[in-house]
């Protein structure tokens, strides 16, 4: 009973601080529950949907093959292969909302009986029944087309099937879930069409002959035999060696790789948010620590008295544990509960970027584990922080001894010019343990805000950082001819707008390295590759590989590999490691001479890349070239439609993060500030008695927090400058980006510290409003 009475009294007495703990744990649990559920559900869902929709362990995209059955049979004849399923498709470029696609689309014939796809309702709020059929003239697209091209129902998408304006124009009838190409991170897009439209397109392709712009193709879903012990890479190698698959391959991807492409966005943003939540959890511990110290200091006498009536330290510590454990538990429970609708909101809000509707169903086991883990962490922390209670003796309490007696003089002197600042600094130094929490919180928040800010500055307002990471070499504009059009002809058009300052050619054929198919970036000026280690491939028997290929094969600079192209194979020395995140780093680089030893040359293979004197003319040049040469040309700028989704997501993340930062600063300042004000009542009375106004005292109080925030912010900023690139690089490697180097401008560096300082000072000013109410009679109370 006495425990109940004491606990009730403690909860009432410290209700402000305990409410702060409740809010902080609620925010942490809500964010943690949301991030972890989105993360794990994304991974599980993509995996299970790839299985359900019939993707094999390996899926090969093939083209221009007349004998599908023959290839399928030859693959199935291998002992290691269980079965092969075929899905026919047509590769075609497309134009949507007057924007030309950067990558080819795949027109996939919809066969209702296969039950491969899920369809969304018109408002994208959830699933609907699959259509019984897709009518001629209709097309179903991924919701990511909304963020990439601004597509809406009823819009038209034009597929240039052959030259001379032989297009297939389809109207968007609805949206479907594409678990392979649905993410806006992936340039290639799938389009579900009717059998009649496929037949029409095939007719146009066949009749056009060499004027065809689109190609017939298929997806081969390859399933290994049950008894096969080969890895996916070994399987790929086996297929390239023992079948003709490589001759027709557009690309080959494992199921894991496909899931990896689809999950780049979720994983990257979930990773960042998870790290942020862990920082916030650390902040909660700091705030808790400060609150416990203050509570013990203010309840010192009460605890001593309770000891005189027979309560021991263990009981008092248990009461403290319950006092903090109750609001923390309630905060965690409500936070995890709130994470369920939050998950739905996040998933629905990001549908047009991720392309998939991840189930929002929380895992109860998972939530319970997270809840218990955090609670145990908090309990252990509270238990450790309440050790001081053991040192309280009844006599100490009765004598009024506390830990708060100042016995050490702290410099600088609290007078001279600018007395408010000096006083604030002096009060800060002499009571520094009270401000350590705020200092560490400022440090962590500024560090994290700086880290994300650096990522944002790397990305840049137009996404150049990410494009440079994905491209094997930089450029302003790339032009590839599909017909007789020559380089000189389209350069004339470019020169009408601006001078060309530099140029190189690049091809991206598929080639195998040690038996496994990859994209080969073939360039005539290999010095343009972004080399991380070693040197670029200048000789015709040299290649450069990404860190990911190096890790996959366990090879490094100086090793020899076998590269097979469409006309032969050869031995090549790895001369360097380079950076290119395309295909999540599954690519390698060669020079032109090196490739032509094993690959067929063709004028249309090469894409001309230009650097422009005035890069702002890119858009106008693209439009001019497309209108002049139509389907005979493919023009791409150093961007792709999905980039805007990523930039928007990054900006949304920044806004969300700053919002959380501000809420945390508010709570930390209110909790810390209130305790400090309570402890300084007498000093405040004294200052008032000697003529300081409330405004003066509020100013010095806010200044203390501003100084703390500046100091914490400086350390946080320095820390971010030193370790951001290393930390982010290690996270970015998940997406194939290994050369993350941030170059924020001055404002980018200073902004996080300025925001954190400003809010600390503002909230401290707000909290210090209580100073007005400090009566001078506080000095009479003695």
């Amino acid at each position: 009973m006495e425990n109940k009475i004491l606990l009730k009294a403690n909860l009432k007495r410290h209700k402000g601080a305990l409410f702060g703990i409740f809010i902080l744990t609620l925010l942490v649990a809500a964010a943690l529950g949301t991030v972890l559920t989105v993360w794990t559900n994304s991974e599980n869902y993509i995996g299970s949907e790839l299985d359900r929709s019939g993707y094999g362990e390996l899926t090969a995209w093939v083209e221009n093959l007349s004998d599908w059955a023959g290839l399928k049979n030859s693959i199935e004849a291998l002992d290691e292969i269980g079965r092969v399923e075929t899905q026919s498709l047509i590769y075609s470029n497309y134009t949507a909302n007057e924007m030309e696609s950067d990558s080819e689309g795949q027109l996939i014939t919809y066969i209702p009986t296969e039950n491969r796809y899920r369809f969304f309702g018109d408002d994208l709020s959830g699933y609907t029944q699959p259509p019984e059929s897709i009518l001629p003239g209709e097309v179903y697209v991924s919701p990511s087309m909304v963020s990439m091209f601004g597509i809406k129902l009823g819009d038209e998408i034009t597929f240039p099937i052959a030259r001379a304006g032989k297009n297939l124009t389809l109207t968007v009838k609805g949206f479907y879930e594409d678990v392979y190409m649905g993410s806006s991170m992936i340039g290639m897009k799938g389009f579900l069409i009717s059998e009649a439209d496929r037949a029409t397109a095939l007719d146009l392709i066949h009749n056009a002959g060499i004027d065809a712009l689109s190609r017939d193709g298929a997806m081969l879903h390859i399933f290994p035999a049950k008894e096969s012990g080969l890895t996916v890479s070994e399987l790929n190698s086996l297929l390239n060696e023992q079948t003709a698959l490589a001759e027709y391959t557009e690309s080959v991807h494992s199921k894991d790789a496909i899931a990896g492409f689809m999950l780049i966005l979720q994983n990257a943003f979930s990773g960042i948010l998870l790290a942020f939540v862990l920082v916030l959890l650390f902040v909660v511990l700091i705030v808790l620590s400060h609150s416990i110290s203050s509570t013990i200091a203010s309840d010192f006498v009460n605890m001593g008295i309770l000891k005189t009536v027979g309560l021991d330290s263990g009981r008092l510590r248990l009461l403290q544990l319950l006092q903090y454990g109750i609001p923390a538990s309630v905060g965690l429970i409500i936070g995890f509960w709130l994470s369920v609708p939050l998950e739905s909101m996040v998933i629905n809000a990001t549908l047009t970027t991720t392309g998939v509707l991840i189930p929002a169903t929380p895992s109860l086991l998972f939530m319970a584990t997270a809840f218990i883990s955090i609670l145990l962490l908090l309990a252990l922390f509270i238990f450790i922080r309440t050790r001081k209670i053991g040192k309280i003796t009844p006599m100490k309490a009765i004598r009024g001894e506390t830990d708060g007696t100042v016995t050490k003089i702290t410099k600088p002197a609290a007078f001279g010019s600018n007395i408010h600042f000096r006083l604030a600094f002096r009060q800060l130094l002499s009571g520094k343990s009270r401000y350590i929490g705020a200092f560490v919180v400022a440090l962590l928040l500024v560090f994290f805000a700086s880290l994300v800010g650096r990522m944002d500055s790397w990305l840049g307002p137009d996404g150049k950082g990410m494009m440079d990471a994905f491209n094997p070499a930089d450029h302003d504009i790339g032009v590839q001819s599909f017909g007789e059009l020559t380089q000189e002809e389209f350069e004339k058009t470019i020169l009408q707008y601006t001078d060309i300052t530099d140029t190189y050619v690049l091809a991206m054929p598929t080639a195998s390295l040690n038996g496994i198919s990859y994209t080969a970036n073939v360039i005539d000026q290999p010095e343009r590759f972004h080399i991380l280690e070693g040197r670029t491939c200048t000789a015709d028997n040299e290649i450069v590989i990404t860190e990911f290929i190096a890790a996959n094969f366990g090879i490094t600079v100086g090793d020899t590999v076998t590269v097979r192209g469409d006309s032969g194979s050869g031995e090549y020395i790895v001369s360097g490691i380079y950076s290119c995140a395309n295909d999540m780093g599954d690519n390698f680089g060669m020079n032109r001479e090196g490739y032509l030893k094993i690959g067929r040359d063709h004028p249309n293979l090469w894409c001309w890349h230009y650097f422009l004197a005035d890069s702002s003319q890119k858009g106008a040049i693209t439009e001019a070239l497309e209108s002049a040469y139509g389907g005979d040309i493919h023009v791409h700028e150093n961007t792709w439609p999905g980039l805007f989704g990523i930039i928007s997501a990054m900006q949304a993340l920044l806004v969300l993060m700053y919002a959380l930062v501000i809420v945390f600063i508010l709570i930390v300042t209110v909790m810390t500030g209130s305790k400090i004000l309570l402890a300084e009542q007498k000093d405040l009375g004294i200052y008032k008695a000697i003529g300081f106004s409330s405004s003066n005292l509020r100013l010095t109080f806010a200044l203390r927090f501003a100084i703390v925030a500046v100091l914490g912010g400086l350390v946080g900023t320095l820390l971010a400058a030193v370790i951001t690139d290393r930390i982010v690089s290690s996270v970015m490697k998940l997406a194939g980006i290994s050369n993350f180097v941030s170059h924020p401008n001055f404002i980018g560096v200073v902004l996080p510290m300025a925001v954190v300082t400003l809010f600390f000072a503002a909230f401290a000013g707000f909290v210090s409003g209580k100073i007005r109410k400090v009566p001078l009679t506080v000095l009479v109370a003695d």
Partner: protein
Amino acid sequence: MKNTILCGKDIHKTFTQSGEETQILLGIDVDIYEGDFTVVMGSSGAGKSTLLYALSGMDTITGGSVTFKGQEISKLSEKKMAQLRANEFGFVFQQTHLVSNLTLFENVAVAGFAAKAGNAKEIREKTDMLLLKMHAENAKDRLPSQVSGGEAQRAAIARAMIGNPGLLFADEPTGALNKANSEEVMNLLTELNHDGQSILMVTHDVRAAMHGNRILYLEDGKILDELNLPPYGNDDLKARENNVLSWLSSLGW
């Protein structure tokens, strides 16, 4: 004819706790004269400290008015009141109430800056001079927790004096001191008064009260009587003590 420096008219003070009102001051009229060492005495709970804090503007009053040098201070804004405290009032409390993280020197100097009592150099010099005068110069670089009660209280008087206050308020300044320290503090206050400093002091200590030249006796929220004396030191101390004691005795002390 003495000049009135502080004037209280019909001062009422009521405390309300748990909805229950307690009247402490019941319409007090009082004038404090320039150059006087006025002492307020009375039995415990008579309202002595309440009157001091009402007259000094440190606490609000429920009714009436307080005027300092012709300016009604009970209606001043918080900011103006702070200015008044910095420039015209000095306070000495029973507990020394020094800021715990400042040295004695800094405690005095900070008040000097608040009162804008000169530039930094002048304030430092004046602080040194006051601490010397208050015999606290040897402890000036120590924190309040590192000095004796007497040293702390003398530093508190120095702090009260640094702004050249028009009126020095002292609330039981010897209440927490031993006899020797009490004697020293009272002598210092007397010396200040002889130099022209107006002082209003509350005490229940007859020996301390004897240092005043005017003693007001408070009973049940009203001034019951007053005793005027010659300046301290100008008469026989024994006779002065007997005079005060017999006056107090006549009032039921």
